[in-house]
């Protein structure tokens, strides 16, 4: 079984401030980890993913996440946010082996960037 815990349901920040959205997971097998973003009234889009190798992964719009196996975490960070980053962010986990293609999501974190 696998599960994902997003520790903050809402994170309000001011524009140009740094932000961290926290994600912890549990799984009995090796995993792939994902962050998705959902803008209002839209579907989900992949933001970034960790498969293996370097524990720090980056997106094209300035977000990064670090995989920490010992702490079973995959926190998302951005050093300076913009108004346009306002959205809901979902952390997700999937088993990396065999036939486990079930993709499990956390409950989401609503990031609100204020001027």
């Amino acid at each position, binding site marked *: 079984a696998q599960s994902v815990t997003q520790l903050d*349901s809402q994170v309000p920040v001011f524009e140009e401030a740094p932000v961290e959205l926290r994600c912890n997971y549990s799984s009995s097998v090796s995993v792939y980890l994902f962050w*998705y973003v959902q803008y209002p009234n839209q*579907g989900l889009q*992949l933001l970034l993913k960790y498969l293996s190798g370097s524990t720090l992964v980056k997106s094209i719009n300035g977000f990064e996440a670090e995989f920490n196996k010992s702490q079973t975490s995959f926190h998302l960070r951005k050093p300076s946010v913009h108004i346009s980053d306002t959205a809901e962010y*979902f952390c997700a986990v999937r088993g*990396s082996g065999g036939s486990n293609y*079930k*993709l499990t*999501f*956390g409950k989401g974190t609503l990031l609100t960037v204020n001027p």
Partner: protein
Amino acid sequence: DAGITQSPRHKVTETGTPVTLRCHQTENHRYMYWYRQDPGHGLRLIHYSYGVKDTDKGEVSDGYSVSRSKTEDFLLTLESATSSQTSVYFCAISGEGRGTEAFFGQGTRLTVV
């Protein structure tokens, strides 16, 4: 954008009636998923499919059934709709291979009155 279409996009139905939502893909991906999204619950997996006629239950499958007779179509049926099934439903598709991410449809907003 991945070729994935959900229909209808919006539906209002009465309690006790059956409802079918359709997910259609043009990517020939093997895996297809149905999720529901509710405030405070994130996305919860209802059912998923790992091939034609091969399906499995997710964490909230009670009251729902699915069918996949063709690679491109994955149908979700609410056998007898209840108000607790009012939600936004998302279909997702995923290919095989290492770390392949899921691509999502635009969602179907279902209201059961």
